[in-house]
């Protein structure tokens, strides 16, 4: 607790607890990059992007979709799916206990949240990884929810968008988790056969099995600024090659330079950019002609200034 927080009477401090659990407690946040002390409400209005240095802080899956999708209409997909510990996996802790702990800490059943909804009036299916849930790792539920999101997109003839934030396949589900890479990739191939676009948004961090499957298979791959994206983790690479890694290695800008991602998009412009890209890919009139001006999303107005 900072000195300032200590000064606050306890009844003010506890107010913070009513809001989303993933938002750090307290009224103030410090930007981990420029160290500026930021008012939390302001940070939230700014999509968790530091107003001083534009550093993109991590977002929970729900915060992400909350700020990405229009408030109405929304339909959550695959809510009744829950993980099962078929292997009775146990490391220093039981997988079952890890799941319970993660579920309690994040309020999610597993590490992927999917919605059918709209962005600036454009209907689509969007999903996002919850990094706080066991490192956003992909197990059977993540794979299945992703497939259902893809199938919903196919059934309703909608584009698919996925925000990834994951350490890779979930070790506690062993080979079953690895196979989710093939499962999700096959589902995307089916989406492609229906000529529906998939836009993959790689956010900090997107590594391992998730990076080496669905995340890289976008018709368009978008990265958020300065996100860590790669197959092997930097520490593993450092140990293998025994040299220090170059500055900015595996960051969005590095991937853009090496031709792995198409564009780096600031989170605050994500909605507009997405609609602009998707309307072209689906050969629709430009957003300004689509009657999409019931765009009363609070942040949209700010970004247009």
């Amino acid at each position: 607790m900072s000195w300032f927080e200590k000064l606050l009477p306890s009844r003010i401090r506890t107010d913070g607890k009513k809001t989303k659990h993933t938002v750090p407690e307290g009224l103030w946040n410090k930007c981990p990059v420029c160290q500026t002390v930021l008012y939390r409400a302001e940070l939230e209005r700014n999509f968790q992007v530091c107003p001083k240095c534009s550093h993109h802080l991590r977002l929970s899956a729900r915060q992400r979709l909350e700020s990405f999708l229009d408030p109405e209409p929304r339909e959550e997909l695959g809510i009744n799916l829950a993980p099962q510990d078929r292997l009775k996996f146990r490391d220093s802790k039981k997988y079952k206990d890890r799941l319970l702990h993660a579920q309690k800490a994040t309020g999610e059943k597993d590490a992927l949240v999917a919605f059918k909804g709209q962005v600036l009036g454009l209907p689509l299916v969007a999903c996002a990884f919850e990094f706080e849930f066991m490192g956003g790792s992909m197990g059977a539920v993540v794979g299945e929810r992703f497939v259902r999101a893809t199938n919903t997109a196919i059934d309703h003839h909608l584009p698919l968008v996925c925000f990834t934030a994951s350490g890779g396949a979930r070790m506690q589900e062993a080979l079953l988790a690895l196979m989710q890479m093939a499962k999700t990739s096959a589902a995307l191939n089916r989406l492609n056969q229906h000529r529906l676009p998939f836009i993959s948004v790689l956010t900090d961090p997107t590594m391992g099995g998730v990076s080496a499957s669905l995340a890289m298979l976008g018709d368009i791959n978008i990265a958020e600024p300065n996100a860590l994206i790669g197959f092997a983790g930097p520490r593993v690479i450092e140990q293998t090659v025994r040299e220090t890694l170059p500055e900015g290695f595996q960051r969005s800008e590095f991937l853009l330079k090496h031709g792995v991602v198409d564009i780096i998009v600031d989170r605050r412009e994500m909605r507009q950019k997405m609609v602009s890209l998707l309307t072209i890919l689906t050969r629709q009139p430009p957003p300004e002609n689509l009657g999409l001006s019931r765009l009363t999303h609070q942040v949209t107005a700010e970004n247009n200034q």
Partner: protein
Amino acid sequence: MNLNFLDFEQPIAELEAKIEELRYVSTDKDINISDEIARLQIKSQELTRSIFTNLTAWQVSQLARHPQRPYLLDYIPRIFTHFEELHGDRMFGDDPAMVGGLARLEGRPVVVIGQQKGRDLKEKLQRNFGMPRPEGYRKAMRLMNMAERFHLPLLTFIDTPGAYPGVDAEERGQSEAIARNLYIMSTLRTPIICTVIGEGGSGGALAIGVGDRICMLEYSTYSVISPEGCASILWKNADKASEAAEAMNMTSQRLKELELIDTIIPEPLGGAHRDLDTTTKNLSSALLEHLTFLDKVSMEDLLQMRYQRLMKVGYFEET
């Protein structure tokens, strides 16, 4: 201690050494001790059998990476004829960690792809210990597309610790190269048979592992991460590798029970490296059997089965 034997194989090694010694003595002095040798040989087999009936997952994972274990290039000339190795991804280079080409299986034209580790230090370095870079996966992809174009069945052989974790591999899009193969294999219009012949390490293995039939040699392993890697992440201690191997269900037997693989190809007593000919025979008859079966399936059914197989992987609760 013989370095070509694993620690749990040492009793066998000692006995074998003794037999060799006796043979040497018997030729030397013309004394008939063949009875004694025969007796010891039976004893050695019994010992091997008793050791090998109760292998732990950790022991199997050591066997899968045995220094004497046959690699893909040991099998190819024994299983196939007319093998023509093809090189390069047409974009960047040729990756010696990934071998591929055209061949005939009992006269029948096929495309072969697989990772190759190295035997001696020089070859190990050249083959990068069987860890492919993106150009390796893209070479594989090129051959997959060739298989589809010319209606040739695709046979893949998995034996890798994983995709190479290096700076250059990341620069050239290791993730994309693996992802693209998964994507393409899911709808490749030709029968695909994948066989794990040694170490099936993570995404680097799966990148040539999506198919209609998944087989494993008896003492090979297939897992999401190496036991050492799993132990150092989850136990924060690489010494717990044997526990990790157990927990990850990485042996052919467990994976068959989980219905993740179709066939366990039996290995001779003591493992593939003890009798290459028998292993080869088992391997090629399994391949032929699957191929003959898959021939009878129409392409649409084949693709549908492959898709459904992928979709049903994983256990979850649905309320």
